[in-house]
């Protein structure tokens, strides 16, 4: 796929409302939120001992990693500027899965076992 300019001309007017830039900033904010959430969770499960602690940290770590892989996949879509519509399904599916993994890790290890 070759890189090309984003769609800038709509109905004869040049205005895309800086959509790509605003979306990139939204990804940045969200990435930051993941780091904070994973940090809070890791801090919580850190006190769990033995294999339980290792499993807990692995779930939190993998959840955050899956999220970031989704972010990277979406960035590739943006860089190529191919119309991505539903092909973004893969990237957003990973992001949603990562978030649910963080929730499960927090629920099981941070709250139920670690509380």
């Amino acid at each position, binding site marked *: 796929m070759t890189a090309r300019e*984003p769609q800038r001309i709509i109905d004869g007017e040049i205005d895309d409302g800086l959509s790509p830039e605003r*979306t990139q900033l939204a990804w940045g904010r*969200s990435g930051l939120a993941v780091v904070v959430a994973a940090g809070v969770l890791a801090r*919580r499960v850190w006190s769990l001992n033995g294999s339980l602690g290792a499993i807990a940290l692995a779930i939190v770590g993998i959840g955050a990693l899956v999220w970031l892989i989704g972010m990277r996949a979406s960035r590739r879509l943006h860089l190529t500027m191919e119309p991505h519509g*539903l092909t973004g399904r893969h990237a*957003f599916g990973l992001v949603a899965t990562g978030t*649910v993994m963080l*929730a499960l890790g927090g*629920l099981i290890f941070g709250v139920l076992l670690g509380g």
Partner: protein
Amino acid sequence: MSDNQMDQGGTAEVVAAADDGHEDREPDVRFTYANERTFLAWNRTALALIATGVAATQLLPEFHIAGGRQILGIPLIALGALVALTSFRQWKANESAMRRGLPLPSSRMTAVLAVGIGAISVIAIILVIRGSK
């Protein structure tokens, strides 16, 4: 919502697509990005709920009521997981509707989130009044 549909270039074309219900074409890239940002905003909301739920069990002092911190934290985390899952479904439904030139589907998530946070606030108030040490 209706503005989005109107602006998708070529009204006649959109109507034709809506009539057969299956014509699939790339929507205006601005709407693709807007849909993506909406998904991300919901995802951040989910992450905030999860982090708050875990922090509630970790940072709050113990209540007189047994398991008080869990009573507060677990619904927050569960709501976060629900928001994460439904935001993906909603993104997909919006994207499909835009591709077919159909009206965007409505979402119950705003109501669920409002009711959920309201209910959790009531739990928190009860814990503070009845259960504080």
